[in-house]
């Protein structure tokens, strides 16, 4: 009895001294990552890491291939969330206090201005990197072989990124917020343009209902701010987090990142810098291990049909790469935020709009199109564009040449040709519109339907479609058509955004530079 008691105390003592080991073991399950086996287990057993494979293809780790875009976009999202939470501690979503609490964040919160800048810039950075990530996926032909649906999810994430940014700048309740709310609510209402023409408004006023639902009134007010706040900090983050999860999960399920069919297995010197190459024998997948884990998923799965030679262990190769990119990303955002302040305009004034009332840069391409027709520019054309982008993987079913930039030199030529033709024609069209105006300037009493049907934005959309189809016809490859279409999209977004940001001044008039703006 006494002996067993003593041994119990001894055990207890041992347990106390053994706490460090037992905690580590319980956390790591397979022990420290000292062997290939335990390194693989670390990846598989960790909740946050298990969405990635135990082994990673070398191609995935080549910076020149992925450019890290998707990862950066994700990290920016993480940074946005954390900095957003920190800013939220001080922000008060009421029209009386929203503005002054944001001012407080700027003035009396320790590093508050910096944190707000980080939140703002990482949010805007997301737009840039989501777009770049999209471009990378498209140009490396990586939306194929089971990845079609993930492209769709990516499109959803793109739209969500825009909407999150939009709802974000509505919160400080400054002039920008207020007039953005006014403009956005009227954009939401703009289907009325069409229902008016069709005479349907009196039966079902879709635009009006949407607007009222969004504003909870007829003009932006306290209730609107609460709705936007709810969207920005709760609904949209939940949705986007979910979709990001699905997006990652699908990457894994769809067989990881694309790899060229003829990936060069004999790795050159660069490769040695990037990863620690496995020895010819002794890797976990080359010995007597089974592929049990992998067979749990159906379809094309990583590593099974690949040469094991071209994969390396994810821990530490992938892990350190991801850590490095994260720290780089954070450093870049903080440096940028130290030197560039997020804008905060005058307190909201419902009587005096800003002139020009410009949205943030990423919407100015849209605003340029809105200046032709609200309904087409802000609803139909963006919807058609998103639809067109979403359908790319389904209209281009050519399964060859995945994982190669531009699918080779032919694609590069098409991209360059499209870039030149697109820029010249779009700039030419804008020059025409700036110089001569459009229907309303020529025939002031013209019916709105004609402007809805025929306006520069529509013509441009038709031109883009025609060009892509012509490319398909002339090259005989739907893949080239996809490259042409997407290049046109990028060119349009860039040029329209540039024109909207730099060349449009008060009253949406054309100016070569901001220095020429008349002072208000």
């Amino acid at each position, binding site marked *: 009895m006494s002996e067993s008691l003593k041994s119990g105390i001894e055990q207890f003592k041992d347990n106390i001294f053994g706490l460090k080991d037992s905690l580590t073991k319980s956390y790591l399950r397979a022990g420290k990552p*000292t*062997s*290939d086996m335990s390194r693989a287990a670390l990846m598989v057993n960790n909740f946050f890491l298990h969405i990635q494979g135990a082994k990673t293809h070398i191609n995935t780790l080549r910076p020149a291939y992925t450019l890290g875009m998707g990862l950066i976009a994700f990290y920016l999202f993480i940074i946005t969330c*954390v900095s957003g939470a*920190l800013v939220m*501690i*001080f922000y008060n979503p009421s029209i009386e206090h929203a503005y002054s609490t944001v001012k*407080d964040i700027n003035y*009396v*919160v*320790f*590093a*508050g201005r910096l*944190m707000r800048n980080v939140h703002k810039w990482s949010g805007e950075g997301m737009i840039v990197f989501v777009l770049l990530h999209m471009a990378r996926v498209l140009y490396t032909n990586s939306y194929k072989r089971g990845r079609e649906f993930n492209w769709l999810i990516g499109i959803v994430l793109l739209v969500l990124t825009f909407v999150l940014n939009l709802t974000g700048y509505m919160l400080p309740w400054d002039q920008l917020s207020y007039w953005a709310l006014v403009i956005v609510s009227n954009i939401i209402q703009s289907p009325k343009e069409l229902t008016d023409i069709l005479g349907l408004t009196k039966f079902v006023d879709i635009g009006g209902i949407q607007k009222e639902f969004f504003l909870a009134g007829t003009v932006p007010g306290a209730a609107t701010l609460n709705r936007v706040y709810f969207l920005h900090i709760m609904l949209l983050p939940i949705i986007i987090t979910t979709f990001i999860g699905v997006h990652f999960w699908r990457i894994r399920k769809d067989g990881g990142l694309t790899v060229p069919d003829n990936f060069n297995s004999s790795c050159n010197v660069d490769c040695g810098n990037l990863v*620690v190459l496995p020895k010819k024998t*002794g890797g976990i997948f080359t010995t007597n291990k089974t592929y049990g884990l992998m067979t749990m998923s159906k379809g094309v799965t990583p590593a099974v049909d690949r040469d094991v030679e071209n994969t390396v262990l994810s821990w*530490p190769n992938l892990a*350190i790469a991801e*850590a*490095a990119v994260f*720290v780089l990303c*954070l*450093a870049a955002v*903080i440096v940028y935020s130290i030197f560039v302040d997020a804008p905060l305009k005058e307190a909201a004034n419902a009587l005096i709009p800003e002139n020009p009332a410009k949205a943030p840069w990423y919407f100015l391409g849209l605003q340029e199109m809105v200046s032709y027709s609200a309904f087409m520019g802000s609803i139909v054309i963006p919807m058609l564009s998103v639809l067109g982008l979403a359908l790319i993987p389904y209209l281009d079913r050519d399964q060859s040449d995945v994982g190669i930039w531009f699918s080779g030199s032919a694609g590069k030529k098409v991209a360059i040709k499209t870039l030149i033709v697109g820029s010249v024609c779009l700039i030419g069209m804008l020059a025409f519109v700036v110089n001569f105006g459009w229907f309303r300037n020529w025939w002031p009493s013209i019916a709105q339907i004609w402007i809805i049907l025929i306006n520069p934005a529509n013509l441009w959309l038709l031109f883009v479609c025609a060009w892509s189809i012509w490319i398909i016809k002339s090259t005989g490859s739907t893949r080239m058509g996809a490259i042409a279409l997407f290049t046109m999209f990028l060119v349009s977004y860039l040029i329209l955004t540039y024109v909207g940001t730099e060349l449009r001044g008060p009253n949406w008039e054309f100016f070569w530079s901001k220095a020429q703006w008349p002072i208000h």
Partner: protein
Amino acid sequence: MSSTGEKTEIGRRDFLGVSAIVAGAIAMLSVVAGALRLTKSNVYYEQSQKFKIGRPENFPAGTKVKLDEKKVFIFSENSGLYAISSICTHLGCIVSQTDSGFLCPCHGSRYDGIGNVVGGPAPRALPWLEISLHEDGNLVVDASKEVKSGTMFLI
């Protein structure tokens, strides 16, 4: 699996890797530290703790006044004026005046007429607050400054 030859081969790499991870960890810690500092509020949206209560002649000897908004009792006796905080030293409820002293409604702390604890969980006496005379002739109570129990303000 690990031989001595392998160790020397990757020794330099390990140094690079370890220093990178350490530097990364320190950098992240500094960011976290800054973020934590951020959450501490630098300014408070509170009214000034100093307030005027009126002229001395408004408080003839024998006056007992409770200033609800300022959370303070003012007493005037022949020997002078004194102010006692009405905030219970236990958990911050507002005490009420009884015949024998003060009573806290929340957890039953009892104080005598000059604020000393006579029962309940209160750890210490109700604080006496500083009274001073402003240039314009008004009395000023500073709720942020405690004075020793029994300190009278002499007019």
